[in-house]
């Protein structure tokens, strides 16, 4: 009942003209960002972050959330029409979506993708509305040891479920945690590895690092590949799927919604994992698994639904625990913090307008997206005609403006540039960069919780295994580690240890 009242209150906020306008701007920009290869949801959010400074916190976060799930929608368009995934979660949609396009069913694939995304998005929003308050209330019982344990679990899951090899992900996570220790020590005021640079006393800024790793390095990588691919243009009259396609899509959409939502709760590349998991599940459940990869509607409906549901699910840890589950929610967390709002268990009671306004605006945004995506698909595809050599200087200058406008510090622009170079090298060495960004933001919180816990227990490390919450988390972590080594020893090493790219 409380959730329904909260949702009602949220709708009153979401339906103000200003919030509707910025929600529209967010989903429109997000769709464009999702369509353009090379600019993911994080880049899009970071670019428009300065715009939110002039807005109220709730309006700003509504716009940023709009970019986030708009990009998820947009990513599927290029996968289906060009076999170019606009963002990583849409990779699996290429398999059957593009094949459907080649068979003249592009319109149906786009419709099912948009419809599935809409259903998945709405299921996850309902999930947030009912689960986030429960989790937030539960999280009020968390002390420093519980917070440390849950963050350690988040990082462990990130290593295990990440898109790269486990050892590399762990290495990058640790590097991120280490970089998170740079700056003034929160407990003693001691300057750590600042080398006399004042900007570093606040720590290595998350935004410049994220923009460098995701924006600048993406530009550097994309500059190497400017192949122009053929675009299959769908006709409006072919947009509606036939009865058989609709019938076959319901199951994958239903399963994808729930699977995506729950995978979305996990940290890391949840939206990517969810789309692959849904594809595998649909293939296993199908009576005609051999049809997958040849233009099977289930191969589009399931993954597209799942990745949008995961995007919604990812908002739960952010809003109720104050722990971002991925780089894009982390930028949203920064945006809230710039406005003086700390996401976490108290957000719902202290800032109900933000909490419920954002959730309700996601419904509105989903409706806007389905209206935008279907008739305007031809228009969005035209963005791909802009040559990258014309686009990249604009992306770089927008990145610089975005970073400078946050704190007005030139040093942060240098951090962005260095991070861009480092990100480029890391990508060339097949390291996944997302965990570094996430660890950089979780690191200081984790250290604080770690030290507070030890002070509470007078140095007794058993505090991390005492109490039902810590103990349960420790058991789960133990099982994950055991499962990984079991798989390594008895089933074999994962194939992704070394990706053959030559």
């Amino acid at each position: 009942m409380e959730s329904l009242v909260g949702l009602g209150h949220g709708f009153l906020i979401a339906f103000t003209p200003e919030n509707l306008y910025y929600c529209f701007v967010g989903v429109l920009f997000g769709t464009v960002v999702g369509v353009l290869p090379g600019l993911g949801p994080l880049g899009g959010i970071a670019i428009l972050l300065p715009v939110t400074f002039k807005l109220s916190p709730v309006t700003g976060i509504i716009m940023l959330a709009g970019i986030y799930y708009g990009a998820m929608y947009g990513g599927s368009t290029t996968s289906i029409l060009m076999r170019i995934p606009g963002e990583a979660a849409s990779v699996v949609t290429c398999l059957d979506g593009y094949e459907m396009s080649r068979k003249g069913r592009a319109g149906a694939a786009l419709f099912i993708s948009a419809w599935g995304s809409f259903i998945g998005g709405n299921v996850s929003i309902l999930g947030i509305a009912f689960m986030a308050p429960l989790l937030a209330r539960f999280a009020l019982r968390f002390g420093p040891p519980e917070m440390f344990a849950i963050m350690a679990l988040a990082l462990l899951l990130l290593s295990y479920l990440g898109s790269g090899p486990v050892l590399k992900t762990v290495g990058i996570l640790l590097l991120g945690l280490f970089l998170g220790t740079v700056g003034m020590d929160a407990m003693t005021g001691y300057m750590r590895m600042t080398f006399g640079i004042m900007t570093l006393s606040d720590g290595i800024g998350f935004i410049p690092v994220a923009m460098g790793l995701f924006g600048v390095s993406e530009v550097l990588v994309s500059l190497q590949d400017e192949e122009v691919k053929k675009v299959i243009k769908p006709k409006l009259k072919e947009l509606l799927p036939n009865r058989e396609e609709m019938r076959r899509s319901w199951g994958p959409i239903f399963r994808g919604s729930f699977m995506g939502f729950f995978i979305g709760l996990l940290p890391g590349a949840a939206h990517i994992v969810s789309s692959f998991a849904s594809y595998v599940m649909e293939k296993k459940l199908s009576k005609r698994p051999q049809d997958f990869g040849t233009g099977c509607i289930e191969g589009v409906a399931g993954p597209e639904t799942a990745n949008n549901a995961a995007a919604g699910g990812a908002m739960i840890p952010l809003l109720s625990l104050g722990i971002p589950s991925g780089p894009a929610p982390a930028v949203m967390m920064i945006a809230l913090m710039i406005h003086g709002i700390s996401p976490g268990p108290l957000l719902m009671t202290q800032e109900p307008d933000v909490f419920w306004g954002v959730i309700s605006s996601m419904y509105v945004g989903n409706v806007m997206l389905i209206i935008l995506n279907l008739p305007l698909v031809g228009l969005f595809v035209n963005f791909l005609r802009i040559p990258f050599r014309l686009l990249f200087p604009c992306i770089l200058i927008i990145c610089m403006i975005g970073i400078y406008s946050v704190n007005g510090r030139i040093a942060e622009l240098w951090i962005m540039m260095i991070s861009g170079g480092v990100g480029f090298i890391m990508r060339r060495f097949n390291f996944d960069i997302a965990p570094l960004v996430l660890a950089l933001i979780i690191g200081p919180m984790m250290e604080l919780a770690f030290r507070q816990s030890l002070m509470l227990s007078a140095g007794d490390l058993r505090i991390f295994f005492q109490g039902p919450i810590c103990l349960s988390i420790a058991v789960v972590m133990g099982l994950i580690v055991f499962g990984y080594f079991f798989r390594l020893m008895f089933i074999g090493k994962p194939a992704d240890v070394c990706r053959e790219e030559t």
Partner: protein
Amino acid sequence: MKTDRMGYGILLVVAAVGLGFSISMPFGDLQQPGPGAFPTFIASFLIIVSAIGLLSSWKIKNACLGWHQFWGGELKVVFKVMIVVAVAIYFFEALGFLLITALFLSIAFGWISGFRPVVAIGLGAAGGLCAWLFFVKLLQVPLPEGILG
């Protein structure tokens, strides 16, 4: 040279340097951990992980990415981009946002994208003006005015 080996090698060096800095900070004790405790713990763990990675990468027979590909023509473009970005950052406050945006775009379009100089300057000037109108006038983002201020 294998990229995996090189990647873990760099990580190991970074971790060793990090550990060097960390141990120079007050460590404290378990009851009252000092500012050096957490970084030391993390850097040590990173050394172990990168060392394991380095050792395991020796077993991999095939190179993930050849050096010739990594250091080939692509790095030239990367260097060009980095130089233009570095120059833009260096003069960002001195020259001001409008001028530096126009210059940055002109140089990037001309030197990296390969447009003719007249086209590059035209695009740069137009881009700079659009950015100024959008960010400064419309969104009122505080950006340096530099010599035009």
